């Protein structure tokens, strides 16, 4: 596995911007409990204070500090997005690897129908459907993302595994009589996961927007928890009088998505240049 120290210096301009943006947002997210004297879910004074000192981003309709809330939300949203990508990535890559190497056409055909059926639905619609079944909140959100999104990773991993199946080094594992588990874990999956990671990075953008979107719609993270989507939703009725309640979390969400997209683009360019 390539270590970060070997990858980072080779990144190009856009990826550097991506890393810089994400580093600032994550750093503020981690440091906000130390930097800010305010509690993200308690009133800090008057309502609708315009941005200035000491309330950098102003206060909301309940008098809570928007700066504190925005970066408390950064912690939650980014953590949820990482988990929301990681679970389906691991499950899907494994499933795809198994399906790509199985010699049972009935089993793989049946799973393929399920995978295509899941992928055929609009992403948010089916996630909302699953949330409705398993219940809202952080846990329901993660379960719904895993239940839906694994199918995309499975599709990618299966396609890659099918290619690998005809490579001589996989034939060599058959000639050497390795077990199927050994071939899968040591030869197929290590050559499949890099594609899953590449997709995972672009998927991260979709997932973080989905988390905010679902919370905006009221089926994700519950109030009074600080979460970007929920904050945007909270501020919407007051958009004319107090734009800062909506704009700052929205801007931070957009910047995070842009940062990840730049990083993904940079990594893609780098791997294209190398191969």
């Amino acid at each position, binding site marked *: 596995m390539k270590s970060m120290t070997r990858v980072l210096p080779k990144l190009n301009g856009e990826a550097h911007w991506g890393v810089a943006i994400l580093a600032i947002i994550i750093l503020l997210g981690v440091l906000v409990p130390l930097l800010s004297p305010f509690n993200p879910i308690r009133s800090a004074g008057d309502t609708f204070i315009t941005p200035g000192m000491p309330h950098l981003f102003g206060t909301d309709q309940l008098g809570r500090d928007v700066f504190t809330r925005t970066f408390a939300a950064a912690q939650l949203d980014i953590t949820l997005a990482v988990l929301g990508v990681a679970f389906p990535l691991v499950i899907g890559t494994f499933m795809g690897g198994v399906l790509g190497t199985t010699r049972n056409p009935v089993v793989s055909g049946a799973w393929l129908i399920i995978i295509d059926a899941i992928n055929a639905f609009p992403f948010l619609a089916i996630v909302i459907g699953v949330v409705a079944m398993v219940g809202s909140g952080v846990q329901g959100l993660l379960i719904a993302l895993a239940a839906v999104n694994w199918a995309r990773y499975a599709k990618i991993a299966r396609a890659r595994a099918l290619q690998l199946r005809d490579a001589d080094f996989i*034939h060599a594992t058959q*000639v*050497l009589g390795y077990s199927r588990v050994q071939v899968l874990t040591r*030869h197929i999956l*290590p*050559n499949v996961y890099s594609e899953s990671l590449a997709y995972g990075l672009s998927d991260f953008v979709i997932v973080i927007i989905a988390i905010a979107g679902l919370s905006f719609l009221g089926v994700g993270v519950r109030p009074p928890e600080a979460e970007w989507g929920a904050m945007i939703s909270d501020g919407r009725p007051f958009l004319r009088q107090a734009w800062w309640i909506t704009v700052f979390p929205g801007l931070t969400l957009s910047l995070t998505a842009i940062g990840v997209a730049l990083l993904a683009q940079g990594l893609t360019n780098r791997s294209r240049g190398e191969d």
Partner: protein
Amino acid sequence: MPNEWVTGMTEPLLEARAATVTYGYGGAAFNAVNDANVYVQPGEAVGVVGESGSGKTTLARVLVGLQPPTKGNVLLEGKPIFGATAQRKFPRSERWKVQMVFQDPYSSLNPRQRAWEAVAEAVSAWQGLRGNQAKTEALRLLRSMGISPEQAEQFPHRLSGGQRQRVSVARALAPKPKILIADEPTSSIDQSAQAQLLNLLSQLQRESGLAILFISHDLGLVRYLTSRVYVMKRGDVVEQGDTVRVFNKPENPYTRLLINSIPGHSSLAETTLPYES
């Protein structure tokens, strides 16, 4: 059919008996290998020559058990390796006896495994060694193939084609096989690397009694390495026999054509070898 050179004193180590491989169906069906009878005695070096598309590689895949023949069977030490069931799989307990070196050195090693890891994995699987012991044995095998411990730490993309092929040979030797099937192992590596690989294979065959089935379109290499040869054309074995005899007095017009198309073939017809160890 056995000629005077092989008098059937011993049971063949590996044998394709009336093996036919058919691709396609109906009118589009054709036989990549047609009713081939090919055998290798223990410790023997046998060549298979023919132009591309003659069915050499398919024959190799059948003999190594990667692919069951449509008709006929493969016998390992007299026992058929493909059962009559739908699965038709090479029994795992016998796998170590027949190993293979593939044609393309760029796809025959796992890009995510260091050279020694690829060999150590095979050592663990068949010699029951673990951890450091497996690594030591892997490094020993690699060194015997001319791969230094420093090179053994590299991933395949850092190694040359010739080095990769020698890693592949070391991996194939790890189960201590009785026969090594080499499918055009030198076709995509440079001249000096070819000579080195051929010398190693020849040395293995002479010194450790490993049987070798050497598949190539290059008659010079086949002549250097093998004592008996099969000539294939469009799936048929058109000529077979003692290598020197086939080269000096080819009976089949196709064999004659192949030999005549070697540059400087008249010198090859003599007993000098193209590569000296």
